Each structure stands twice: as C-alpha cells, then as structure tokens.
C-alpha cells in the first residue's frame, strides 16, 4: 500500500511534468510571461510590481483589445526571487514562444544573458541585472533601460553635490554607503571608489549581509560613530524598512539619507514620523493621478480583474510595474510597425526594443504625460541612461523634490564599455553581434 502511494506519486510526477508544457499559444496573440515574486523574502517589493505589470497589460487588452489588434496573452510565473525557480519558469515558458522575458531578479537575469541570443528571446531587465548589458553591440538581446545602477549612483552623487553647491564642494565630505552585501549592492563599489578619489570625499562602507537584513543595529552604530554627511542606500526587500527604522533610531538626519529606486511607501511608513525627509531616486510618478492609472482603475480594478488592493494602486512600485509593462507594450507596438506583422516574434520585439522611441507626444497619447520622461533606445545603447529625479517622504507619500538629474555619463560610459569587454573576454568565445541594425535608430 505504502509502496503503491510512492510509486504512484513518482509516476504522476513524470506524467504531469510532461503535461506541464502545453502547446504554443494561439496565432492571434503575443505571449508575454511575467516572472513575479509575490512570495519569499522580497515579496514586499514584488507584489506591487507584479500587480502593476499585470494590470497595465490587462488594461490594454480590455481597453484596446491588445496591441495593434493583437491580444496579449499574459501569464504569471512565480519565482519567489529564487534563481532556480526562475530558470524553471524560463524553461516552462520557452516552448510557448514568449516575445520577451522580464526576469525581475538580477540572479535570474545573469544565467539568461547568454541564453537569450541562443533562444532568440530578448531580455528586458528594467534598471537591474547586468549594468554592462547596456552595451547593445556586445549584448544585442539584453535591455536594461532606463538607467544602470552606476547611472543611479552618479545621479545621487550629483544630487548631493547640488545640495552642497557643486561637485567640487564634496571635497572633505564623508559619504556613507549602506548596501545589501550581494552582487547588486557591491556593483557600485569600484565606481564609488573612483568618485571618492576624483571628487575628494571620504567613502564609508556599511555592508548588510543578506542573512542580517533585519538586524542592522551594528551597521548603524558605525554610522553613528563615523557621522557621514550623507548616506546612500542600495537596499532590497526587508533590508529597506529596517534600515530606515534604524536610521530614525540613531537620529540620522533623514533628508541626508538617499536611496536608489527600490524602496516603497510601506518601507518608509513603518518608521513613523521619524522617516519624514527620507529621499529616493525615481523616474516616474508615484501617485494615481495620471490618466493611465485612471484607465487601469476603470477597466481592470473596477472590473475586478486586479489582484491589487485598492490603496496600493498608483504607489511607487505599482507604477514601476506599470512603467515596465508600458515598455513591453511599446516595444511590441514598435516591432509591429517595423516588421508590418501583427503577431510578432522574439526577434521582432528585439528590434522593436532597439527602435524604441517614446517621445513626449507618445507619452501624452499613453496617458503618461508628466508620469515619466521620454525614453529612446538604440542598437548600441540598450539603456538610454535617462535622467531621474529625487523624491522625498513627507510622512504619507513621496513628493518630487528635484529636477530631472542626468547621470555622469562621461564617468559611467567608460566603466560600462570596460565591463562589457571584460564580460565578453571572460565568457569567450562570446558570440559577436550578427543582428542587423534597423535604419530607424
């Protein structure tokens, strides 16, 4: 009996896993898988992003019947931000000819980078993943607009400089950098080192091990001791609310505490009034007052087609998801224009991404006027290195407190080129770019 149970289980295993791969999608739709992480230690960020991405695409289906008359077949695959599950998702969706994959995890992106060219599936890792993949000549299949982490870092430095009255004023200042002690948080280290030498400020490092995200008092005691003039944070998931709380505890001046673009409203809210003044980078609106969000509410939320809780709609990370889906949709649309086909493939969408050019007019048409800035990609530049702005927590919501800040491209570009080169060498034989470049871009 017991034995039967086991054998049955195992038999079922094989059978079902074979079943688990249905046939390719019907011809009149484009298949867009969404890798989400509504579970696991980073769900706090993942849920909002997932909802945003999901709802925008659903809205397009509901309102416009898809893109260019073609329905978008949306399917979520839960990764739990775990690389192994992510790859499982990738293998699961591959047979259904996805036009693009959004891994939503640097860990999942990295193994996919070499595969993209082989499987002919473009990867859109929006403002995460491998910074060097901005170099379209080396990575024709990878796109990481609108900014790399290095761009972001340079923008924060520029903002700080602006507070102090010029880059030259940073000399002798102390800038602390608290970061998740993993690839993502460590990526800016060489850049920080270089900047501190060139600009003459002193850099203080406060690594937070992934296992200790919620136990940072030691790091913040160090902050108390060093008294840096500014704090920069590259945090993630549970690390962020904890960091903000600890900052409040140590009475660190919050308006001098600036994060990269990942914190959410909840992260700041948890720390109470003390968190007022906390700053973060962003490149899109963090309120629901935009036509596009209104449409989502009308066509998706009110129709009960959204998983999101009402009050989360229009928040920073939700809108981040919307923005990401907007890129997906626009890329597909551009691909349709370039190829003249309605049902586009991965190859077409890759071209679509390279030809992507969303100007002010288009933004208006999308109902995103003032939501974000124009964005343009090219064959050589898969990132765009677009300007971002700083928003500040006022106790209830984030408020834009700076103009658009351009990155220090002159400093970032060389790093990116060097890294792309290094990557190609380390992974030799790395295929040279064979994909043709459209005239448009």
């Amino acid at each position, binding site marked *: 009996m*017991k*034995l039967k*149970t*086991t*054998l049955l*289980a*195992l038999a079922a*295993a*094989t059978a*079902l*896993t*074979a*079943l*688990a*791969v*249905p046939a390719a999608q019907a011809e009149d739709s484009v298949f867009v898988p969404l890798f*989400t992480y*509504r*579970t696991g230690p980073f769900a706090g960020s993942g*849920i909002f992003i997932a909802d945003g991405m999901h709802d925008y695409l659903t809205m397009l289906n509901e309102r416009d019947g898809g893109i260019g008359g073609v329905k978008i077949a949306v399917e*979520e*695959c*839960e990764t*739990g931000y775990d*690389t*192994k599950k992510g*790859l*499982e998702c990738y*293998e*699961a969706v*591959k*047979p259904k000819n996805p036009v693009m994959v959004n891994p939503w995890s*640097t*860990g999942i992106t*990295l*193994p996919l*980078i*070499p*595969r993209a*060219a*082989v499987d002919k599936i473009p990867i859109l890792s929006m403002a995460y993943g*491998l*910074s*060097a993949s901005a170099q379209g000549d080396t990575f024709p299949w990878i796109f990481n607009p609108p900014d790399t982490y290095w761009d972001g870092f340079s923008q924060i430095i520029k903002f700080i400089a602006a507070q102090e009255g010029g880059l030259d004023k940073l000399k002798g200042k102390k800038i602390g950098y608290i970061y998740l*002690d*993993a*690839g*993502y948080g*460590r*990526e800016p280290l*060489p850049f920080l080192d270089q900047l501190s030498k060139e600009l003459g400020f002193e850099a203080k490092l406060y690594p937070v*091990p*992934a*296992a200790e995200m919620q136990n940072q008092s030691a790091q913040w005691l160090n902050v108390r001791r060093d008294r840096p003039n500014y704090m920069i944070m590259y945090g993630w998931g549970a690390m962020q609310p904890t960091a903000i709380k600890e900052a409040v505890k140590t009475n660190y001046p919050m308006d001098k505490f600036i994060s990269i673009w990942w914190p959410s409203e909840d992260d700041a809210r948890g720390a109470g009034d003390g968190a007022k003044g906390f700053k973060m980078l962003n490149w899109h609106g963090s309120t629901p007052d935009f036509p596009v969000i209104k449409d989502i509410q009308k066509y998706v939320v009110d129709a009960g087609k959204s998983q999101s809780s009402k009050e989360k709609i229009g928040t920073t990370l939700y809108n981040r998801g919307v923005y990401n889906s907007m890129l997906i949709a626009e890329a597909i649309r551009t691909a349709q224009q370039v190829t003249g086909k309605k049902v586009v493939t991965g190859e077409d969408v890759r071209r679509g991404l390279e030809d992507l050019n969303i100007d002010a007019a288009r933004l208006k048409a999308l109902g995103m006027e003032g939501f974000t800035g124009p964005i343009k990609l090219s064959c050589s530049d898969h990132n765009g290195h677009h300007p971002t702005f700083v928003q500040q927590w006022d106790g209830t919501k984030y408020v834009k407190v700076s103009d658009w800040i351009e990155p220090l491209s002159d400093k970032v570009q060389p790093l990116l080129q060097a*890294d792309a080169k290094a*990557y190609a060498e*380390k*992974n*030799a*034989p790395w295929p040279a770019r064979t994909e043709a470049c459209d005239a448009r871009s």
Partner: protein
Amino acid sequence: MFYREAGQYKTTYQADMSIFPILQDRIGLALIMVAALVLPLFAGEFMIASVMVPFLILALASIGLNILTGYTGLVSLGTGAFMGVGAYACYKLSTTFPAINILVWIVVSGFVSCAVGVLFGLPSLRIKGFYLAVATLAAQFFLQWCFVRLPWLYNYNPSGAIEVPSRTLFGIHVTGASATPTTRYYIALAIVIAVTWIVSNLVHGRVGRSFMAVRDMDIAAQLIGIRLLRTKLLAFAVSSFITGVAGAMMVFLWLGAAEADAFNINQSFVILFMVIIGGLGSLIGSFLGAALIYIMPIIVRAAPESFGLTIGAATVEHLTYLITGALIIFFLIVEPLGLARLWQIGKQKLRVWPFPY
C-alpha cells in the same frame, strides 16, 4: 511470482557478495538504465532541462550528504556551502586553465571541497548530535560570506556572480548557453552513474562498514580497532567530495550562472530533506528522496494548469509550501525509515506475491 530468488543458488562467495545478488534486481536496474538513456528521445525540453538534470544533480548531492548523515550518523546543515565550494573551485580552475577539459575540472573541484569539508569536520570528534549539526552552520554561513567577500573567487565580476563560459567536449558544447539540455543531461547522467557505482562499492566494503559501525555504536567501534576521528574525517572527505562535484555540476550543467545566494542555507535544508525522506543510509533512497522533494513541487505548480484551473501564481506557491510540508510529515509518519524502506517492503511483497506473506 515474477520476483523470486528461489532457485538462484550462489555457488561462490563472490556471487553471493555481489551488490545485486538477485537476478530480477539486475534486470530492473538494466531497464532503468535503458530508460534513462532513451528518455531524451521522448521527453520535452522542459522535462530534460528543468526536471531531469536538476533531479540528477540533487540526487548526487543527497548521496554525498547520505554518506555523512545516513552512513556515519553525522548531521550536517552545511551541504549548500560545500556545493558552493565545489562550484567556485570549478569556476576558478576552468577560467584559469581553459585549455583543460571542463569535465576534468568538475571532478577536481570535488577535491577542493573535500579539503574544506575535512577542515570543518575536525570538531566532529568532540561535538556530537545536534550540537554538531549546529556547528556545521558555522561552515554554511562563513563559506557563504567568503563567496561574497572574496572577489578573487568570482574573478572580480562586477555582477558578483560566477558565469559559466561555454566549453566543449569533442567539439560538442557541454556547458554554456549553446549546450543543449540533452547533452547536459547525458553528462550529468554519466557522472551520477559513475559516482553512484563507486560509492556503492565503498559502502559495501570495509570502509562502509566502519562508517556504519561509528554510526551505530561508536564506543564498540573503537574497541574493535576503528579510529573514530580518522573514520569521521574520511566520511567528511568522501561526503564533501561528492557534494562538491554536485555543486560544480549545479552551476555548470544546470544554472549557468550563480550568485553566492544559490548556496544558501535553504539549499542545505532541501538536501537534508531528500536524504531523510529518501532513507538514511540508502543510495536508492537518495534518488527517491530527490525525486519526491524536487519534483513534487513542480507537479503541484503544474497541476492546476494541466487541469485547466486558474489559480494565482502566488497562491500556487503558497500551496506548494503547504503541501510539501504536509507530505514530509506524512511520509515520516507512514515510514520513518524513508522511501527506501517502502521500497524494501514492496520488494518483499513482490517476492511472496500472490500470497500475503
């Protein structure tokens, strides 16, 4: 009726001491082998790339841990880290000496993790039981910290990850993006079969007996001349060699790139599940355990879709956790000695079939 050893007389000790003394077992094994060989002809790419390859690799890792925990009775929660050592070693070696074939490095990396394993095995003479289990956590967290903190290990990649370069064997890609799942599957299969064969030789001989002696009654073992420390360290060495190889395979044949986090504490736990659910001190158990623990969640995830149900991806994930946990408890209650024991019982039943006993 069909599974009877009646009439199979052993005329030599050699025959009697062969690892599969019963004819039907040998036939069964042969059949499984054949099935494994022809599988890629029928199974889809998902089945090969995301089910079979990981299954083989995890099974190998559990064999490694089983040597330590199942045969020698030393519980370790550091398996993930030891897999990591293998992976990082293999990465360093293959990137430093690209000329030498990757398969060589996969095996050699085992020795590196072997050395580290022995180092962290040293306390095992004084520390016993759960105390030792927790002590191995020191290895887990320290090594993981090293994977992050020593950029030398990942060639100073700004991504902080190890990325698998594409390597070939007889002109066929075996690692990297252009290596087909089928190739990777056959490589993994070959290694797993080889290691399993060697391990089964080991555990059926003097070494295996002294492992088990230490596990069952270490004092008595001492009094018949078995050196405790030496034996325990040997167990650590063999075990971490195998886990190391498994780790290298995990990155080079399965993931393709990995951050330090791929070798985190959960990895260690999962392998431990496999060993215990599969059956302590049983090689076949390691395979059964790996199959159950790794493949079951995939089914749970796939099931709704295949039955045309639509459940939120998150809900499915939560259910997966729930069901996995429940099944672990269920199997422990049904048969604490693990799937391997069920296997034995099954064979016994077959032996006397159609009679109840």
